[in-house]
């Protein structure tokens, strides 16, 4: 990797100032994507501003049917939180299947969603559960946050501080992993919420999206059979050596049905 200037931050404001001051500065959360990218010399930042020292960004609060996860909370903490497991078991389960144990020990929710890998799990979690992303500047609905492949609504230097999840009536996440990378070839989160059914899909397309036809079908009949014969449209789905667009489209249907079934 190319060398850079390493900067620690004592607060969110300090981090924001340091990232703004750098010529081409980047923020580092858990580093689980940034460091492999730098190792491959695919990026050459002037400065890396480490959010790891900001304790206020870490932690989980559950109150009044809302789970708030600090941006620097690692996946392992979410996966093993009894409070999360009680409030939104699907969220704990999703976090427990991200990457591998060592990734879960270091990787953070803020880092994951800011990176917005098209095959990452958390974007499906946020969109499927109708979460809200809180930053140092504003609040952004998950539906508006993930804007494209590795792209989000975050402005330059804007820092995610937490994510707020409303507890659904029922939810489940089903992932069909890429056999090599273990990222999602297709991951589907289905949630039945007070505001309606949400079906969020990751891995299949260039960015997480909602399967509105499936949502509509489930509104009237929240059971796997409501999705019988339904697949995603293969148009615009990802195609690579591991899976064709048609296979991904098919898997969206399978994973959605299994997620509905798992909602009980």
């Amino acid at each position, binding site marked *: 990797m190319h060398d850079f200037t390493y900067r620690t931050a004592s607060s969110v404001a300090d981090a924001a100032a340091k990232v703004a001051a750098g010529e081409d500065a980047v923020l580092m959360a858990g*580093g689980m994507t940034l460091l492999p990218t730098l190792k491959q010399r695919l990026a050459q930042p002037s400065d890396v501003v480490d959010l790891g020292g900001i304790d206020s960004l870490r932690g989980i609060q559950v109150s009044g049917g809302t789970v708030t996860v600090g941006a620097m909370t690692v996946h392992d903490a979410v996966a093993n939180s009894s409070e999360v497991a009680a409030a939104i078991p699907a969220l704990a389960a999703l976090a427990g299947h991200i990457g591998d144990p060592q990734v879960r020990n270091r990787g953070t929710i803020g880092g994951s969603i800011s990176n917005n890998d098209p095959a990452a799990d958390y974007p499906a979690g946020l969109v499927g559960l109708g979460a809200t992303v809180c930053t140092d500047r504003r609040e952004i609905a998950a539906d508006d946050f993930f804007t494209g492949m590795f792209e989000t609504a975050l402005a330059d230097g804007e820092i995610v501080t937490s994510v707020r999840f409303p507890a659904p009536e029922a939810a489940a996440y089903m992932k069909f992993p890429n056999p090599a990378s273990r990222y999602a070839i297709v991951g589907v989160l289905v949630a039945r919420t007070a505001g309606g059914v949400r079906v969020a899909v990751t891995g299949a397309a260039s960015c997480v999206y909602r399967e509105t036809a499936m949502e509509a079908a489930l509104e009237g009949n929240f059971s796997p059979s409501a999705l019988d014969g339904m697949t995603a449209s293969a148009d615009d789905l990802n195609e690579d050596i591991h899976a064709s667009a048609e296979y991904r489209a098919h898997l969206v249907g399978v994973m959605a049905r299994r997620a509905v079934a798992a909602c009980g």
Partner: protein
Amino acid sequence: MPTVKMNVNGEAVSGEVEARTLLVQFLREQLRLTGTHVGCDTSQCGACVVHVNGVSAKSCTMLAVQCEGADVTTIEGVADGDTLHPMQEAFRDNHGLQCGFCTPGMIMSALDLAGRNSAPSETEVREWLEGNICRCTGYHNIVKSIMAGARAMAAGQGG
């Protein structure tokens, strides 16, 4: 160049590093703790697993400077002098290693699991090892080793 200070295997150490120096490079090249290995460049193989502040982490995917003030344990710090840790004993007793290259990472990963789950099932062990690749053993005896090691630790045999 930045100076980094940390505790490695119970000893305070410090060194001058570049910002880009990975923890594994600091351990191997500056501290000459070469038991921690590098087997890939995509953070997947787990040969580099160490403990940072008590939990397992891939030392190829951390900067040395991120470990300022941290407690780091490597495979060299697991045994108590000449007395092997029960997890190390279990790997030897169950032929849980062949070429030995992935073994330090396997043992460090296994110790994290055993700390959370004193009697992991075969399925739990296999799932836990998602981040550790072995090309020699076919995992059969690694899984046996970890189950036995966790049991031995729970039984208080020095764990």
